[in-house]
């Protein structure tokens, strides 16, 4: 280490030494840590816990859908009174299961678990910062999430059951405790948990944006930022603008539920009795909810897209195709995501002309999405592909993004949506494009950055097995649901056995359920690999994938503060893979152009001259020893 800097070298890392040899106790190091890497791992572990629980819930209701006549008596030890005396799943509990599954997956796994883990872990490491702008708020963000998790978890065990109105909690169903048991205490706890969750997301988001804009290392201009960082940046902005709207919606709902106001309620009769609520509008809730709800799908998806851009470029050993187009399309998607919400409301009696405007805006999203898919494929094209588990999952993401995205074009048409709305076609669509694609992005990220997180490698072969079973399993689960949806199966139904038309699909439903069980079972391969490798895996080299970004310049187990010495400066974009003339097939971002004369392009040589002309604009670097 001998980077002796002369003149103008700006030390904005003066507090580095405070951090270096600083050792706290167990509590400050692992529990109430302010180190972004530890907080990221806390989010990851909590997210994995929720993913497992959400998956188990879905398999329980898949059992009901695939085997409506089977006895579920054997679940009584776990579910207790929710199994009826004749061995069936309680019908209201079915709704609660669906609701909790959706809520858990969308918010707790793919928002907190995904953004929370990778934004926290990668932002400081990839932009060259010692930590987040505010370690304290970052810690607070995790603990708000944790408290929210605890409340949501407890709500699973109360006697009236957890919230049952669907993850979209539409009133009047969710507003009236008399309506179903899942609108009682469970719903109250859902709202409290989500309010805390929103606070957590906002604290996180404020930190991410502040850090990205203000804490970049020398040379890290916006056009040298890895696409992961761009993705996290847009995600945080979307969250910052949309989560407060959900908060407002929930606030009004809380007042309707607990204080007797009528924002969403009007003209309701229960058992012949008119309720006092007068003058509210249920559609109002849908507007507010979907103003968050649609951007939320991009909050879930964009980080996964960013992660896969990075992994695909690294493992194709090629520069990402269309770096600026990738940023541009993410920006375009982020903007569009705020003006398409009413495509969820085509059948609410909306003015058909307004419907066609929202249809047009929705269909435009296909353009930037297609640009992204094109760029992934062209990056892969004729690359020296290395099929690491992270790479496999990234390619899987591209596949799901494509198959799921195509059905979005159907659903975005206001006329076709009349037939397809609220059927299993929708379930198939969003599970592929949002659920599976983001889930695969998350898995890809875990496999790819595990060596930096835990200093050890995960097992390749187990990773590949995990990938193939999950990939095939996901298609087996969700592809048939398209047909079931077109045939007219509505979602959120406990059972279809009373409808004659459904009997033709009984086998298909059984297949889906079996595939779901297998897919869930395959996740235990991952869990084993994850925890086993954490303690017993092969020791990881500092840069196992020969990658360019800054996190790989840290030691094997980076301490609080990330770099033992000075923070590296950045001289080039992150995608100099297989550059013609270069000695190796990658050139990390912290290698100056002046050290790579053999591979520089003419304009890069000019840049050296420009920046080192005169005696003030240069740094003298001593020998490495």
């Amino acid at each position, binding site marked *: 280490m001998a980077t002796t800097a002369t003149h103008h070298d700006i030390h904005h890392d003066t507090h580095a030494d405070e951090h270096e040899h600083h050792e706290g106790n167990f509590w400050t190091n692992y529990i109430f840590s302010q180190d972004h890497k530890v907080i990221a791992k806390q989010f990851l572990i909590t997210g994995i816990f929720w993913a497992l629980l959400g998956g188990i819930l879905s398999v329980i209701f898949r059992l009901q859908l695939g085997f409506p006549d089977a006895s579920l008596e054997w679940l009584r030890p776990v579910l207790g009174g929710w199994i009826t005396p004749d061995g069936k799943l309680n019908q209201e509990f079915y709704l609660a299961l669906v609701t909790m599954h959706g809520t858990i997956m969308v918010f707790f796994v793919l928002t907190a678990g995904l953004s929370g883990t990778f934004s926290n872990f990668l932002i400081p490491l990839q932009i060259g910062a010692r930590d987040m702008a505010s370690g304290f708020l970052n810690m607070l963000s995790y603990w708000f999430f944790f408290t929210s998790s605890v409340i949501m978890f407890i709500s699973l065990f109360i006697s009236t059951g957890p919230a049952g109105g669907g993850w979209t909690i539409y009133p009047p169903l969710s507003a009236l405790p008399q309506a179903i048991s899942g609108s009682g205490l469970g719903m109250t706890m859902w709202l409290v948990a989500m309010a805390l969750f929103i606070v957590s997301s906002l604290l996180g988001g*404020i930190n991410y*944006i502040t850090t990205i804009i203000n804490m970049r290392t020398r040379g890290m201009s916006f056009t040298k930022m890895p696409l992961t960082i761009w993705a996290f940046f847009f995600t945080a902005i979307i969250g910052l603008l949309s989560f407060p709207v959900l908060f407002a919606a929930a606030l009004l709902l809380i007042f309707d539920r607990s204080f007797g106001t009528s924002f969403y309620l009007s003209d309701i009769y229960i058992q012949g009795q008119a309720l006092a609520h007068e003058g509210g509008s249920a559609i109002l809730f849908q507007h507010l909810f979907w103003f968050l709800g649609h951007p939320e799908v991009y909050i879930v998806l964009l980080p996964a897209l960013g992660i896969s851009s990075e992994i695909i470029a690294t493992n194709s050993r090629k520069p990402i195709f269309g770096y600026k187009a990738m940023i541009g399309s993410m920006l375009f998607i982020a903007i569009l995501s705020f003006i398409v919400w009413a495509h969820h409301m085509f059948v609410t009696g909306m003015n058909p002309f307004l419907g066609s405007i929202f249809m047009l805006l929705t269909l435009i999203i296909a353009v930037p999405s297609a640009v992204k898919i094109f760029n992934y494929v062209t990056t892969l094209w004729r690359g020296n592909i290395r099929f690491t588990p992270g790479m496999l999952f990234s390619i899987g993401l591209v596949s799901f993004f494509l198959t799921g995205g195509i059905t979005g074009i159907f659903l975005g048409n206001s006329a076709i949506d009349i037939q397809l709305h609220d059927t299993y076609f929708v379930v198939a669509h969003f599970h592929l494009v949002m659920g599976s694609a983001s889930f695969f992005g998350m898995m890809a990220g875990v496999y790819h950055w595990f060596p930096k997180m835990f200093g050890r490698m995960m097992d390749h072969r187990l990773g590949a097995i995990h990938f193939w079973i999950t990939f095939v399993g996901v298609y087996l689960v969700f592809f048939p649901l398209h047909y079931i949806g077109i045939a007219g199966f509505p979602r959120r139904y406990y059972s279809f056995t009373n409808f004659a038309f459904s009997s033709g699909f009984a086998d298909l439903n059984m297949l889906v359920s079996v595939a779901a069980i297998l897919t869930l079972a395959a996740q235990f391969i991952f869990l084993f690999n994850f925890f086993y490798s954490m303690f017993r895996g092969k020791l990881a080299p500092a840069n196992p994938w020969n990658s360019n970004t800054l996190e790989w310049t840290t030691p094997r187990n980076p301490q609080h503060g990330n770099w033992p010495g000075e923070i590296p400066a950045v001289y080039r974009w992150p995608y100099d893979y297989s550059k013609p003339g270069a000695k190796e097939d990658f050139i990390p971002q912290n290698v100056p152009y002046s050290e790579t004369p053999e591979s520089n392009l003419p304009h890069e040589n000019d840049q050296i001259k420009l920046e080192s002309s005169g005696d003030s604009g240069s740094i003298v670097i001593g020998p490495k020893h």
Partner: protein
Amino acid sequence: MSVDIKIVEEPKQPMTMNPKKFGMWLFMVTVFMVFAALSSAYIVRRAEGNWSYFELPALFWVNTVVILISSITLQWAYVSAKRDNLESVKIATIITAILGIGFMVGQYFAWADLVTNSIHLVGNPSGSFVYIISGLHGAHVLGGVIYLLILLSATQKGLVHSKSLNRIEMCATYWHFLGGLWLYLFLFLLLYR
């Protein structure tokens, strides 16, 4: 060890801003978005008809003046801090806090006026919205007053002076924001009744 020295181009330091101040601006964006959501909910709901009309309490006018004056007094505190006139910083901050509390008390009495006018929280949404919007804004003012008290204690400890203005700048930014926000909400309620 041979010493071969190389000349390397110097990377530029990216433009940055104080992270805390920047974070404060982002926080204000989120607060604004909550109220933007409430006001668009108001517009959407109002467009559907069945909307009862009533006069806003006259006290709202008085309270608006109070909160605007409090912005001026806090600005006075800020200017005094710049000139290291710590006594007036303290006095001006205290006056601002008192005005802030006065504003909240005033809002409370405005609610009482609404009640005598038979506009209750429970009833037609047109009235409920006024309670929710002014109440939520009041909650933020309460937060602002607490922030002022923290600033006061920092001044007491000598942490606020012409070389260290961040604290008072951030507090003033937030306080002006709350004033501006109320102005927006009040005008909004006046225009769309």
